[in-house]
């Protein structure tokens, strides 16, 4: 067992937690920065935004101003809009005038009310994955020409390569809570092993063998089985009598 000192896997786990916290911050920082760059490269834009989308849910969003944020939020409350379509169809979407465009009737009407008249949205693609969308908005109709669209499309390729390497906040939250769970459950196994060693005079590996054998015979999940032993400690043999 000396081949695998305990510090090894603990180090790996801590490394993962640290790395994930870092990537969560990085994702937000990256989308904020990219929204800024998108606006700077598109002089006709009144605002720009970058959204990371996972299973039709937005996981991170960067926006240059409140109008972009509003227009973007509307897409997710209405479940329609240029960015969602750019993301799901993997192709760019241009809206020259929100007051006449008929493709997203609810979104266009609400966006026009908020002051957005035209927009261009380009998907963020990485291999087979569609990561989200990058968009520019304007308060005047038909604000973007072919040169603007070509520039934003080139930028989206570089942005996708960057964003592909950062985790979305949703994923990292999920993983780090799984890690906490897993450490707790590992702790329970350790306590249960100690109880069996003390109570039945076993070595550590004999105790673990006994526990895995019990899990196999009873079909009770290991975590529950060890938790039962830990909670039933002092009440000798009650968990054995019931099985």
């Amino acid at each position: 067992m000396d081949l695998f000192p305990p510090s090894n896997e603990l180090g790996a786990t801590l490394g993962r937690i640290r790395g994930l916290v870092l990537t969560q911050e990085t994702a937000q920082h990256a989308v904020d920065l990219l929204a800024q760059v998108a606006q700077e490269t598109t002089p006709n834009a009144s605002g720009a935004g970058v959204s990371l989308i996972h299973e039709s849910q937005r996981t991170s969003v960067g926006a240059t101003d409140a109008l972009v944020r509003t227009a973007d939020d509307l897409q997710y409350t209405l479940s329609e809009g240029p960015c969602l379509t750019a993301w799901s169809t993997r192709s760019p979407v241009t809206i020259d005038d929100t007051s006449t465009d008929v493709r997203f009737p609810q979104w266009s009407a609400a966006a026009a009310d908020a002051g957005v008249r035209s927009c261009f949205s380009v998907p963020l693609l990485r291999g087979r994955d569609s990561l989200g969308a990058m968009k520019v908005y304007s308060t005047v109709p038909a604000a973007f020409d072919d040169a603007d669209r070509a520039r934003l499309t080139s930028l989206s390729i570089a942005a996708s390569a960057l964003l592909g390497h950062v985790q979305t906040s949703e994923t990292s939250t999920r993983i780090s809570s799984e890690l906490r769970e897993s450490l707790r459950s590992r702790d329970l196994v350790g306590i249960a092993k100690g109880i069996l060693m003390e109570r039945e005079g076993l070595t550590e590996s004999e105790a673990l063998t006994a526990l895995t054998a019990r899990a196999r015979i009873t079909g009770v999940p290991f975590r529950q089985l060890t938790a039962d032993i830990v909670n039933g400690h002092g009440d000798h043999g009650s968990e054995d009598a019931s099985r």
Partner: protein
Amino acid sequence: MTFPYSEEQRAMITAAIVESGFSTGEVWLHYFSLSGEVDEYEVEAYLAGLMPMPALECDLLALAVNELIDELPPRRRAPFGDELVRAHAGTGDAPSP
């Protein structure tokens, strides 16, 4: 450390992981939570047949894989006609004749 069927066990653990669609990371995390001692990199090497693991760790890995498989949602079952009739009886939305 190794027993005669260790290679067969390794191959079948790997096959079970591949077939159920779990990533090595997911399997390792669950194995770790069951008090597995071997770190992720080495478990991956074991699964690829590059290095052996202690027998008890192999069994713990098998247990972790099986628990993950047991947690998968069961396949959808086809309903019988009378089950649907009974299911709708209480709801009052009887189909029009």
